């Protein structure tokens, strides 16, 4: 289940780190080893991001330049810690499956409803899948990239990744209960590289919910995560990530959502944690008749920075994409939203929407919004827009005039503002949990 280390983990700065890490992982699958080797070479070659690059405009780069001191996580955790993590990884009454990873190591055996296993569903750790279904994983693994600026970190992710989750729902299989992943960071100065691969076959329907948390508030972490969603014709995948790493975490989340024909593919990011979170999401629409939805609900407080870059690329005609990223900013927090819709020449009759709303709850918060369109087809319906506003005074007075105190009124208004996203989660337990974490941000 886990490796015991004879020597101290080297840091990312150590020239032998890659070799050491790959030997530790001990995965004897050639294509994967080669992919990691090539990624490591790419990582060493690629430059660090610079602010003059449009893809990093407004971003705080100092933390990203100082990742060498982190050590790729590994080694055994104490039973007390594991027990505590497993106990806390319980947010749904009924699930289709559950995987709990602590510092990239399984904290409990993989759970999958045996009935679903019989239907051919694969829900297991990525390393297990690479060994058991090498060709199937290879068909999807790193076949798509967000292409939004984090190429160096993506290479680091591939080189260092040690675990993750592979969910494969075969054609015509529908599952109502969610598959749930709990990803925990534990050791101080630990770096983890979780990878989620969600493949929905033709007319398959499934929900994957991923919780990202830290076992304690004071430790420091680097997280470079990837999540890739593949929706085959007629598939209806729904993927949510609740990013709640502790507030000393530098996290990167590099995602792609890939949709073929007649799909209904939804992905939602909930962001409350991290000192700095960089997220890249690329929705690619390869087929017609698809509806791709991309949502985000972000509540940065204190000095948090949430930096989100998105692409909606319409390659095939007659599809729709809808992006709605909503921020409520508290304290001295910062957000960056940079979104681009690309409609390729052949993608006629595209409907593409992109909206970024910022609700400023403090004078010192800063929201940067860079929406954009690049349309090469001539018969499309596209819109993009960003709004930045404060709490509406007459709405606030209405609450006060009913005897509701100012802080409670503000909280309810922010809840109301986010309800548009929360109701799209399509899961009552998840919606309640999200409301709860948002409320916690107000009590801090």
């Amino acid at each position, binding site marked *: 289940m886990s490796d015991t280390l004879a020597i101290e983990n080297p840091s990312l700065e150590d020239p032998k780190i890659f070799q050491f890490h790959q030997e530790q992982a001990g995965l004897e699958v050639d294509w994967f080893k080669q992919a990691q080797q090539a990624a490591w070479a790419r990582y060493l070659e690629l430059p660090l991001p610079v602010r003059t690059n449009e893809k990093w405009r407004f971003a705080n780069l100092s933390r990203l330049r100082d990742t060498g001191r982190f050590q790729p996580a590994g080694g055994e955790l104490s039973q007390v810690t594991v027990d505590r993590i497993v106990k806390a990884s319980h947010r749904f009454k009924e699930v289709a499956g559950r995987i709990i990873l602590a510092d990239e190591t399984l904290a409990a055996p993989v759970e999958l409803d045996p009935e679903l296993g019989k239907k051919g569903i694969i829900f297991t750790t990525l390393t297990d899948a690479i060994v058991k279904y090498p060709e199937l994983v290879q068909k999807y693994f790193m076949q798509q990239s967000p292409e939004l600026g984090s190429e160096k970190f993506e290479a680091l992710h591939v080189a260092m990744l040690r675990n993750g989750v592979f969910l494969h729902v075969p054609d015509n299989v529908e599952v109502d209960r969610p598959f749930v992943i709990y990803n925990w960071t534990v050791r101080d100065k630990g770096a983890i590289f979780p990878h989620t691969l969600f493949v929905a076959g033709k007319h398959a329907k499934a929900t994957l919910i991923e919780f990202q948390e830290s076992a304690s508030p004071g430790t420091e972490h680097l997280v470079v995560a990837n999540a890739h969603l593949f929706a085959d014709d007629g598939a209806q995948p729904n993927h949510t990530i609740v990013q709640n790493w502790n507030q000393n975490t530098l996290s990167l989340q590099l995602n792609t959502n890939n949709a073929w024909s007649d799909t209904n593919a939804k992905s939602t990011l909930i962001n409350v944690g991290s000192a700095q979170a960089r997220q890249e999401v690329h929705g690619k629409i390869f087929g017609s008749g698809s509806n791709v939805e991309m949502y985000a609900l972000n509540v940065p407080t204190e000095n948090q920075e949430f930096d989100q870059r998105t692409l909606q690329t319409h390659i095939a005609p007659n599809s729709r994409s809808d992006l709605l990223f909503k921020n409520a900013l508290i304290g001295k927090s910062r957000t960056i939203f940079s979104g681009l819709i690309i409609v390729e020449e052949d993608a006629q009759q595209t409907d593409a929407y992109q909206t970024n709303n910022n609700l400023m709850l403090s004078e010192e918060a800063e929201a940067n919004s860079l929406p954009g369109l690049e349309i090469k087809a001539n018969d499309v319906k596209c819109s993009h827009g960003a709004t930045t506003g404060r709490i509406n005074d*007459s709405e606030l007075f209405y*609450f*006060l*005039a*009913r005897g509701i105190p*100012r802080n409670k009124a503000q909280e*309810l208004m922010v809840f109301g*503002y986010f*309800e548009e996203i929360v109701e799209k989660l399509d899961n009552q337990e998840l919606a309640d949990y999200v409301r709860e974490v948002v409320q916690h941000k107000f009590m801090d």
Partner: protein
Amino acid sequence: MSNLEIKNLNVSINGTQILKDFSLTVPKGEVHAIMGPNGTGKSTLAKALAGHEDYEITGGEVFLDGEQIVGKEPDEISRAGLFMAFQYPSEIPGVTIANFIRAALTARLEEGETFKAPAFYKELYEKMDLLKIDRSFTSRSVNEGFSGGEKKRCEILQMAMLKPGYAVLDETDSGLDIDALKVVADGVNQMRGPELGVLLITHYQRLLNYIVPDKVHVMFDGRIVQSGGPELAEKLEAEGYDWVKEAAPAGAGA
């Protein structure tokens, strides 16, 4: 001292004085109407009583059952027992009527008291039935996409649930057709009684056919210029407001 007592209230907006030594007493259990032409300060009175920060009280006092409310925060004034039904209620996206009223009631709980959801919903549904508000409205966002009549009924619903000692209804009749007006008036009439004092602010006499006031006050240029019984409203209806302007004390309205 069971009354709403307004004494020599002076109110300015952006440095312009609107209310001028305004005085009026509404005893608990009575319904008083204030009528007057547009721009005479009726809505200013409502907003100032509710504690709106844009309405600067430069002098005077307001007592709610003897408790001074000038200088208090709007939420404190509300919890002290003064309800304001808005002329133009705000739309609150994403906050349901049930949650909104629940938050208002929760804010009124004494220490150690807990909110009782089943009793709350039972009462809410009863009041909604009475006001002919469809029960599905509980899960709709406050006032969002409501018609004028629905908004006003929603105001009266809130009043019925919060059970204030005093209510100021600011132009509650504006924008209502006759059927909606009757429903709203029925709702107010049902609440009439020894535990409630009402100040009805209106431009038209029409509302007073359905909510018959104990007293009618005519307001002009920031103060009351004449008081009387319901017959005063009929005179205004028949003769308009011109005679009020002439009857106003010298200097007023100049």
